């Protein structure tokens, strides 16, 4: 079964290092930084190329700073993407 490829972008400067996305990622794609951001927190980074774009991380992120991307296939999005978004 071909794995669905996904990707996330995290606004690391707004991350508070709560670790919840890391814990919630079923693919163990994320991990916490060693260094601190400007606000003094460690931050989440996409470290492994295993992301399927399942959105779990984004769903549990209290800061709403994760944007999730996925390969072409239609998914049941949690919320509709605004129109006019590029592919």
């Amino acid at each position, binding site marked *: 079964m071909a794995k669905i*490829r*996904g*990707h996330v*972008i995290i606004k690391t400067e*707004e991350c*508070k*290092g*709560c*670790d*919840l996305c890391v*814990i*919630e990622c079923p693919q163990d794609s994320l991990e916490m930084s060693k260094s601190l951001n400007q606000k003094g*927190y460690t931050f989440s980074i996409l470290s492994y*190329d295993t992301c399927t*774009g*399942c*959105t*779990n*991380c*984004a*769903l*549990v*992120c*209290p*800061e*709403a*700073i*994760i*944007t*999730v*991307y*996925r*390969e*072409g296939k239609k*998914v049941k*999005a*949690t*919320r*509709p*993407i*605004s129109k006019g*978004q*590029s*592919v």
Partner: protein
Amino acid sequence: MSEKIKDNVIESMKEVWERTKLLHDAPNHYCPGCGHGVVHRLIMEAVEELGVMDRTIAIAPVGCSVLAYNYLNVDTQQAAHGRATACATGIKRVFPDKIVFTYQGDGDLAAIGTGETIHAVNRGDKFLIVFINNGIYGMTGGQMAPTTLEGAKTSTSPDGRDVDLMGHAIRIAEMLALLPGAYYITRQAVNSAKAVRKAKKAIKKALQYQIDGKGGTCLVEVVSNCPSGWKMTPEESNKYLDDEVFDFYQLGDIKVPPKEEK
């Protein structure tokens, strides 16, 4: 993966999840891992998806979420401690077409605001109450709330809540469900992706009832965390919810509309 490759990868993908435009583009002031941020997002997603931003009014409480209007980009009133439902009644009675929700903590809703909560629901005032039950007074530094579990240590129950002296954790949603004015009452969580999906559905459903003018008050209780007040890491706090809290505050619908009328 270099920046270059990243960009290419993204180019070829669909954005399947982005931050709703109805959240202000500003960082929140909540502690790391706090559930308030998640619930804020869910409500705004629902309002956006339902397309009612132009008539939605939020009522922020006194509690950690007092500044909710800095995050929720909808018209908002910040109500006095415990009086969010009274404030909502005032609006909804004069302007029944508005979509109104209150956002309240457990101190706000179930301690000082008990009377206002019960009577708003008893009148069946047609708005949504989003009730964040984190079993503590977050904002003021972690004092015991009416919803604090037996034995739990807080800054005013330093040896753990002693039910003989301090009373029992109160399940206010169950009490409210006794009232005919309650239309839809459900208890949700946001400590896992699965829970978040469910909670979102519940919030959206409740707002839809209001849009449809269905009779009565809706309440979505979110049993949430307070890592700071509980003196836990976010991870520990979420696990504690699973391990201890949901035993007492069981998740699921407590009262559903008589029948799902169409």
